[in-house]
Each structure stands twice: as C-alpha cells, then as structure tokens.
C-alpha cells in the first residue's frame, strides 16, 4: 500500500506546486486592489515555456545545461519524501531532515553555479547573494532540526509526526520557537518578500531571478518549477511537523488517507494565504539586514534548544 501512496505523493507535490504559487500571487493581487491572474496561470506559463525553444548563451558550458535538471530533481526528491498527507511512504525513511537540508543545498549550489557559468554580472551578483543567504539560513534550519529531534528522539520527519500525533508532546515553548525559526528560514529559502522579491526584475533587489535570468524555454520552466516545488515542500514540512493533525499514520486505510489529503489541502490554503497577507504587509529588507533577520532565526533555534535543556533540567 505504501508504494501506491508514495507514487501518489511524488506526483501530488508536482501537481499542486503551481497552484499554490498561483494562489499566493492571486491573493496578493487581490490585496493590492488588482484583479490578478487566475490561480491556474502558472500551469499555463509552464506549459508555454515547455513549448518554446531553449536558447543557450555561446559562453555557456555543460554546467549551465545540466543545472536545471539537477536543481529540479533535488527539490522534487526532497518534496517527494516529506510526508504531506500520510507517513506511510516507502521512501519516508530514506531521507531525514538533515538529508533534506542537504538536498536543498545541492539544488542551491547548482543554481548558483549556473548563475556564474554564463559570466554575466547579474548571474554572479545573484549567486553571491544567494550564497550569503544560504550560509545564514542553513545553520538556522539545522538548529531547528536539532531541537525537533531532541524533543522526539529522531530526525526522520515521518517519525517526528507520529510522535507529535501520539500526544508525546504538550504545549512546548521550544516548538513555538522552532516554528518561528523555520518560518523565517522558509521565507529566506523561497526568496519571499522581506529577503527577496519573487516578482521583480529590478537589478538592485534580485536574488533568485538574477541567477536564472539567462534561462529560457524548458530550462526556465524547470527552474521556475523547482521554485514552486520548493515552496510546496516548505509548506508540507511546516504543516507536517508543527500541525500534523489529520495526517494518515501507519495502518490507516484509504479513508484516513482521504482525510489526510483534505488536511493537506487545508494547511496549504492557510499557509499560502498567510504568506500572501504577510508579503503584502511587509516591505523588502536591505541586503545588509539579511544577517540580522536570519541571525534572528538562528538564535530562535538556539533558544529552542536552550529551553529544552531548561525543561529537562527542571
């Protein structure tokens, strides 16, 4: 049974990713007083890009051509093994949280390489900024991982979810701190507004867009798809680890899985709408303030661990 659910999961994350991105854009447009494109627009965009010819710069090497495939594969794999609606996945135990961080790091590494490969100044600038953000966001995410695994005794997301659902943990301060830290990391990793603006092509503020500026056609479709799947992955991770209610556990039948699917849809809806409201309410941050923002996330993670120590010692 778990093989079927795994297969469903692999294609589910792919299928809903553009819808989630489209929904965020739609809500943001409405909040800005615009009518906005339909939430289904990203599907059309991706389809259009896939139809188009991929133009590659003369100076580009094989790295530039390989990067979209590696990036997309790494992010897709990360999203596929993170429980979204059920923990009974064949591959759920193949990757723990640390491996997920590594997969994201791999994707980011290849995107940055591709940004530098063509030799335009924008690509290099975006890659340099992306690496600066990553060097701050990754330790914060690992700190969250550590505090979660200290609570539950495991680093596997499926087992953490099972532990939380079994009532092994009450209202814990550390969990709240870890949630705040993970939300901040998620915003940074997905290039959302206080850190990066996903809808801009203004050179001063671009990070992710600057790296993929040279791409076109199916390469661009893969890069944009990877960004959408990454957003879905973070929503699944945050919704799964901190609000796992409704998720189907080991031994649950198809009914449990249906409930799990409904719960996943509800979580994505809440998180995506919340993200849109947050992005509308807040202004883009100066590049030199990233360190404070992500340093704050790291310290929240650290405090979560300290509080765990405190409640252990008492």
């Amino acid at each position: 049974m778990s093989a079927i659910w795994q297969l469903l999961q692999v294609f589910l994350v792919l299928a809903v990713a553009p819808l989630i991105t489209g929904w965020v854009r739609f809500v943001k447009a409405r909040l800005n007083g615009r009518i906005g494109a339909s939430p289904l627009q990203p599907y059309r965009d991706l389809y259009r890009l896939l139809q188009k010819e991929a133009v590659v710069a003369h100076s580009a090497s094989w790295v530039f051509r390989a990067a979209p495939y590696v990036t997309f594969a790494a992010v897709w794999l990360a999203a596929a093994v993170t429980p979204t609606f059920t923990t009974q996945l064949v591959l759920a135990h193949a990757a723990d949280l640390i491996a997920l961080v590594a997969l994201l790091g791999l994707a980011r590494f290849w995107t940055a390489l591709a940004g530098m490969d063509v030799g335009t100044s924008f690509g290099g600038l975006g890659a340099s900024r992306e690496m600066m953000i990553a060097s701050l966001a990754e330790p914060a995410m690992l700190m969250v991982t550590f505090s979660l695994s200290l609570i539950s005794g495991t680093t596997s997301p499926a087992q953490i979810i099972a532990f939380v659902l079994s009532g092994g943990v009450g209202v814990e301060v550390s969990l709240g701190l870890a949630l705040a830290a993970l939300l901040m990391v998620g915003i940074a990793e997905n290039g959302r507004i206080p850190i990066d603006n996903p809808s801009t092509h203004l050179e001063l503020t671009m990070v992710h867009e600057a790296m993929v500026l040279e791409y076109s056609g199916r390469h661009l479709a893969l890069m944009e798809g990877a960004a959408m799947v990454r957003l879905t992955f973070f929503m699944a991770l945050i919704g799964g680890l901190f609000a796992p209610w409704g998720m189907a556990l080991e031994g649950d039948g198809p009914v449990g899985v249906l409930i799990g699917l409904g719960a996943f849809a509800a979580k994505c809806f809440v998180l995506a709408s919340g993200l849109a409201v947050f992005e509308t309410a807040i202004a883009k941050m100066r590049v030199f303030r990233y360190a404070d923002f992500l340093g704050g996330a790291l310290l929240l993670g650290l405090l979560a661990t300290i509080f765990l120590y405190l409640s252990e010692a008492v």
Partner: protein
Amino acid sequence: MAGSAPVMTQMSYDMAHLIGATVLMAGFQLLYQRRLFAVLNTFAFQALALAAAAAWQAHIQNAPHLYVTAAIALVFKAMIVPFALHWLVERLGIHRTVETAMSIGWTMIAGVALVALSILLVLPVTANASALTRESLAMAMSVVLLGLLMMITRRNAVTQVVGFMALENGLILAAVSAKGMPLVVEISIAFSVLVAMTLFGIFFFRIRERFETLDLGDLETYRGDRQ
C-alpha cells in the same frame, strides 16, 4: 518535566512556561528593533505579556492579590508609560532611529549567552523550589539581564530608559512566580517606576536644553576624568 506541586497540572505549567517565554521573546524583540516607536510598541507588548503572566499565576496559585499586580502592569506599563514616552519622543523631536553601540547581531548573540548564563545560574541555586518557580526564575533573570544589556548597548537616553523598564519587568516576573511576595512590595515597585519615568522625562528636557541632544555619547566630553 511534570509539574511537581500536586495542584499544578501539566496544562497550567505549560501555559505559565509559554507566557514567561513570551515576555522573554519580547525582551529579544527590544534588542532587535531599530525604530524608536517600534521599541516603544514592543515594550508595551512585553508589559502586556507580563500582565498575562501575573494574571495566570494569580489563577493557578489562587492568589487574588496577583490580579492587582496584573492590573498595575496592564495600566501603567502597557499603557501609561509607552504613551508618555511616545509623547515625549514626538515632543522632543528625537531622531527616530535607534543608535546602537554594538551591532544588532552581536547584541543578540550576547543576549542568548545571557539567557544561557542565567539558566546555569538559577538552576543550581534553586534546587529545592518547585519546577514552575525555577523555570520562571530562570526566565525572569534572563529578562533582567536583557534589560541591562539594552541599557548598555543603546546610545539614546529614551532607549536606555526602555531598557530600565524592561529590566523592571523581569523583576515583576520573578516576584509573581515566587509564592508569598507581599503586595506592598509590588505596588511600591510599580510606583517607583512611575516616579522614575517622570524624573526621566524631566531629565530628557533638561539634558536636551543644556546639550541640545539626547545622545549620551556627546555628554562624555563633559566628564571630569576625560580632561
């Protein structure tokens, strides 16, 4: 980590823990803010959380006088003091960015180190107290130290005063979580803060009249030992 006192359920323990941590987080927020008005709003939020902490302690300790403490915190510290400081800042036309003596990042790191220090300090000393008291004392101590840190690392007199008030919030947090603290002490603390606040206000006017700034760095040239 179960509550040790029989009357205390896991739920009430967790809630007290959560509210105490909120006060502490507000202390960190104070260190992070760069705008004067944001600092004042965060301070008001911290006082609000403190009032909630006092009210919750009153509820679980069955000590009605703590409700008075909560009301004092709510009215004086969450409303009157922030409004008064707000008014002062507008009235004096103070430059509204917070000037720091140390970068924000380093201040935050120092803050985390202080939290660790106070936990290491409080836990061995209070070995006989109940679990709830020990945790609250550790948090209250952290809030006090963060207030001190804020006083040290800010250049502007208004933010230093906010640091002082935050420090005092930590004292109240310690007082409400220890059983048997007489009400008189808390009321007198609250009023001394109000008096201090008035005095600070007068001082702001005097300092600015005399030196035309509230940046305390500029005052150092007037110190005797530097000449």
